[in-house]
């Protein structure tokens, strides 16, 4: 997973690398300088001291020879002391040199110098002995020239060889130090070049990376600012519409307030009407109770009528029975009359009068039969009427019963109406109260809506400012994008 570095981290990393390279370069420079200084110190301290000490050895040997000559001339003890002192100085210097010598060649030089000095000292001691004795100065001078002077020349020659050798070594060391310094300078220059190159590379990478990153961010910011501009535009439009809507809502709420007041007044009137209705319902309940009593009386009368009708039907049936007898009698009379007529006809002239009587009896029987039929028809009519009346009365009785029940229902309904009207009255009062509360609430809502409308207007103004700011931001991001990527803007 690629870690996304921040600007500070990237710049810090670049500086850190550059500083690390500078520190490395400084370390290498210090190291090279120290090497050069060490080489020069070695040239100056060791090889110069060796040469100086070689010169000191030459000086000490010269002073020793001078002191020897002076002793030979004057035989003074101070000369001998001087000579010993110089010899001691010579040996001390030689010992110092030996302690610094590393190579066997130099030690060999020192060994030969020490041997030549020992030889010179031995010759000098013999000369000093001759002089201290009875020897003449001439003898001493001759011995000196023969023995001591060659030793002296040998010593000087050894010292010169040593000095020449040391000078060569010094020159070689100086050259080596100079070469080392040159190499260090080249190394430092190379490292400096590498550091400069790295710094340039880091700067290029940082510039490229940061430029791309900032460019992307600026592009996004430009896009976002454009979107913000569009959103601010929409918000401004919406705020304008909202302000219009709030104005309409305020108007509507005012109308609602007026309606609520009207509802409250109507509810008050409804409560009054409901109270009057309750009174009327109670009066109606009393009336219904009276009507119920009247219906009960009617029902009793109807029952009586039914009983009378049934009795009438029964009597009609009895009349029918009697009429059957009458009818049968008339039929028999008719038969008798017919038979009498037949018999009278058979009796001839004498039966003529009897035939008249028989004929009259037959006519009477016919008429009785006709009347019987009429009476039967009447009785049937009566029975039918009685049946119809009984049925009608029973239907009426049932109707009265139904009416009685319905009146009971009506009474119950009136009671329910009274209860419901009472409930309606209470509900109307509650409606009135609620409507008053609603009116108060609507007034509060009206105030709140007015405040909201004010806030909406402020929002509208703020939206305008937001739009202006978004436009400026878009221009700024465009300018920034142009600064970062001028080629993209061209």
């Amino acid at each position, binding site marked *: 997973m690629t870690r996304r570095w921040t600007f500070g981290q990237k710049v810090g990393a670049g500086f850190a690398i550059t500083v690390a390279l500078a520190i490395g370069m400084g370390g290498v420079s210090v190291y090279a300088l120290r090497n050069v200084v060490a080489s020069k110190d070695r040239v100056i301290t060791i090889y110069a001291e060796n040469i100086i000490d070689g010169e000191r050895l030459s000086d000490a040997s010269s002073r020793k020879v001078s002191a020897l000559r002076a002793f030979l001339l004057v035989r003074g003890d101070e000369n001998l002391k001087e000579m010993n002192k110089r010899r001691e100085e010579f040996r001390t210097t030689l010992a110092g040199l030996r302690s610094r010598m590393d190579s066997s060649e130099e030690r060999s030089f020192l060994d030969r110098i020490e041997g030549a000095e020992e030889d010179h000292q031995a010759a000098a001691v013999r000369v000093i002995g001759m002089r201290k004795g009875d020897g003449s100065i001439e003898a001493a001078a001759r011995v000196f020239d023969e023995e001591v002077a060659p030793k002296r020349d040998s010593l000087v020659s050894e010292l010169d060889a040593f000095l020449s050798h040391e000078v060569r070594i010094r020159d070689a060391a100086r050259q080596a130090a100079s070469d080392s310094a040159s190499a260090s300078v080249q190394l430092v220059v190379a490292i400096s070049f590498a550091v400069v190159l790295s710094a340039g590379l880091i700067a290029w990478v940082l510039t490229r990376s940061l430029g791309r990153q900032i460019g992307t961010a600026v592009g996004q910011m430009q896009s976002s600012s454009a979107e913000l501009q569009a959103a601010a535009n929409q918000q401004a439009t919406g705020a304008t519409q909202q302000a219009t809507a709030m104005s309409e809502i305020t108007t509507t709420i005012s109308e609602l307030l007026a309606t609520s007041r009207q509802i409250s007044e109507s509810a008050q009137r409804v409560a009054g009407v409901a109270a009057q209705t309750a009174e009327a319902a109670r009066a109606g309940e009393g009336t219904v109770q009276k009507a119920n009593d009247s219906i009960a009386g009617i029902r009793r009368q109807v029952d009586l009528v039914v009983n009378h009708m049934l009795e009438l039907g029964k009597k009609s049936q009895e009349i029918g029975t009697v009429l059957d007898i009458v009818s049968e009698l008339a039929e028999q009379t008719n038969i008798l009359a017919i038979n009498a*007529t037949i018999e009278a006809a058979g009796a001839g002239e004498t039966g003529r009068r009897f035939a008249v009587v028989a004929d009259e009896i037959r006519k009477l029987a016919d008429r009785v039969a006709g009347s019987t039929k009429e009476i039967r028809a009447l009785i049937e009519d009566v029975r039918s*009427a009685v049946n119809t009346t009984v049925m009608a009365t029973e239907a009426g009785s049932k109707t009265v019963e139904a009416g009685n029940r319905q009146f009971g229902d009506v009474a119950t309904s009136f009671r329910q109406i009274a209860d419901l009207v009472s409930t309606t009255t209470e509900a109307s009062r509650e409606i009135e109260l609620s409507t008053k509360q609603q009116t108060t609430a609507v007034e509060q809502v009206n105030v709140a809506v007015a405040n909201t409308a004010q806030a909406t207007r402020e929002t509208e103004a703020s939206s305008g400012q937001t739009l202006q700011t978004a436009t400026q931001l878009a221009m700024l991001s465009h300018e920034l994008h142009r600064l970062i990527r001028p080629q993209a803007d061209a």
Partner: protein
Amino acid sequence: MIGNGPRPAATSQSLRRAFDNSFAEPLRVESDQLEDLLSILVAGDAYALRLAEISGLFVDRRVTPLPGPLPELLGIAGFRGAMIPVYDLGTLLGYPGVRTPRWLVLSATQARIGLAFDQFDGHVRLPRAAITAEDRVETARRHAREIARTANGARPVLDLPSILDAIGKRARHGPAHKES
């Protein structure tokens, strides 16, 4: 309705008055131009019988069934000490089915024969002119050669001698005899 028609009290008075008046009026001689008829119903159809051709009218008389080959012979009944055969007039007239007639008449012939029918409809007296011969009498109404035009409509007048003749022929020749 009860309220319609003559009142029973008035009818009774009218009947009484008519009956009394009949005896108060002078004796009238019956004209020979009048004919007495008995109106009857046979199987629901109206017929008339000449009163002169019968010797008696009876109702609900006990008829003792008599086993025999003639289906129209209902049985025998006693009339004034004589055993009279009783025939079903409906069967004789060609009406199918079995009936139990209530009424019967006795023929005025020498050999008395009872003819039973369903219902007696009354006595009518018509002028002879009201009884006319009818040539176009339906074949179903046998033994009817005349039509009596009464106040309640026309009704065939049964020819009792023809009926009795047919009974006699069937009695002599058995049930195989068919009337023409």
